């Protein structure tokens, strides 16, 4: 895990159970995962660690996913980092809003893990 040049995924999720579950499954699938529990923390890690991909929950404390995504897209340092939105908001317009504010993809909870892996594969090569 000290290989800073390797590809790594930033998982931003405030629900501890869901966060642990995803970390374990992604790790098992061979990914390097780092975590953040709120939007503020996420932006900081994005700037400092330059993750290959960000999995961003939308329902976050302190700074929610929507704001975090908008701010990331406005920051020249991290605006290119791909973001996949993860949310329990399953309405069609939620998906559209996420894509409009600059998310690269969108996954609905409960997560279909193989499908999520497929989406991750577009941005992260193992």
């Amino acid at each position, binding site marked *: 895990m000290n290989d800073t040049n390797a590809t790594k995924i930033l998982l931003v999720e*405030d*629900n*501890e*159970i*869901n966060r642990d*579950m*995803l970390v*374990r*499954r992604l790790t*098992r699938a061979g990914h390097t995962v780092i975590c953040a529990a709120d939007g503020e923390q996420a932006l900081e890690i994005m700037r400092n660690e330059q993750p290959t991909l960000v999995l961003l929950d939308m*329902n*976050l*404390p302190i700074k*929610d996913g929507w704001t975090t995504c908008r701010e990331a897209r406005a920051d020249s340092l991290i605006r290119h980092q791909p973001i996949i939105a993860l949310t*329990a*908001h*399953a*309405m069609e317009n939620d998906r559209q809003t996420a894509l409009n504010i600059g998310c690269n993809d969108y996954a*609905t*909870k*409960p*997560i279909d*893990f193989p499908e999520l892996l497929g989406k991750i594969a577009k941005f992260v090569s193992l």
Partner: protein
Amino acid sequence: MKTLRGKFSLRARLYLFSAAIITLFAVNVATHVWGSFARSESLVAYRDAVTASQLITDLEQSLEANRQQILVLATLRETTEQPLGDQERLSALEEIDAISQRLRRLGGLDGGGTDDYYRRLHKSATQLIDEWQFFYNNYNRASARFDVESSVSYNNSRQRLQELDKRQEYLAVQRSEAIDRTINLTDRITVIGFVTTIAVTMLLVIALIRSTNASLQRLKIGVQRFGSGDLTHRMDTRRDAGEIGELAKTFNDMSSKLQMAIDDVRAAKADADAANAAKSMFLANVSHELRTPLNAIIGYSEMLQDEIGDPQAVDRDQFSHDLGTIIFSGRQLLSLINDILDLSKIETGKMHASNEWFNPAELIFQVCDSLSPLVSQKNNTLKLCVDIDGMGDIHSDRSKLQQIVTNLFSNACKFTEKGDIRVTASKQGDYLHLIVADTGIGMTTDQQARVFDAFVQAEVTTGTEYGGTGLGLAIVKDFCQILGGDITLTSTLGAGSSFEVMIPVDQESDHASA
């Protein structure tokens, strides 16, 4: 015309109009009658004047003839002394009688202004006739002497007769002139009256038509505005009295009622839209809330399924812990579904209180006892202060009160660490007074304002950090209201919250169940 339109109703206007025309016609008829009367009066006066003139001429001639005859007889008597025959005497007396009759006829004619003249004539003529009668009656008596030459009374009579004639003539002329003037006047009045009647009638007809037309025009414009949908428009009802004003008022009323009906429909539509939006929002929230625990359940189950196929990865303790997580999420899902069902029942008005007599102190003890693990979980201390003796039984819905106490109590435990949970219950008047207070994290004013709304937790974090669905307090508030009471909250951020419940001791005596 403005005042005509303003002050009088249409009916009053018609009545006035008819009255004015009838009055004008009456004036016309009266002047006409007056003129006719003057004409006939003038005719009578003319006939009288003619008769009088004839009689006067006759009398003059008769007097003249008799005078001549008497003069002749007197001369004969002196020269021949021949007696007068009876025959002759009688005819002469008859002649004189005829003269006195004519005289009386003359007096009988209407002699306005000639009475004095006639009296004088009558006096002189009577004297003359007496002299003449005396002459004829005593003609044959030799001793009788007549002074026929001296003609005082004859001349007097003639003179009076002429005076009367002149007077008669003068009066006749005067009278006929007066009558002519009257006739001229009445003729002129009749003509003027007739022309005036026609003119005034025409003016009145025009005024009536114009005023009625103007009123109807205003009505028409008003109704057209109503018809085009401008229901805030109001016709000026002060400008028309009576029927048209009433009609305008009726139209205004109709418009108001229409407006109200439309407003009602709009309000109903807005309510329906709001309810629909709320329902969509509710559904979106429900979907969101259900997906969160499902995510954990499905995720962990899939993960365990993967791991069980890889013997190296199986760690029994980890395995057991993960199963616990699945069970916890499943329970959370179940309580979420139960809460949603409760809330949906409340919102559709299907949630009713089923009242029974029970001891609330007992119920509070039971709840606190069963939830005591929650208290110790975060090292809290429970302080129960229930007035068992003073409380007695209450008539309310046991299961709803139980859920109220459970939700408040578990909330207090959830948001407090190493602090106090204080449950106080007593009877105050007709109300059960329950306070669940904690020394936990507390809430800001903004959070307090929204904490009873469905799907709201004080902070988005609280859901994950403290668990819960965000429906508990919404249900508590609704239940309090269904039980005829209410709930209030006082809270200080960082110092704790206090929920205060007031529920009627006998719900049915004060409140109908909601």
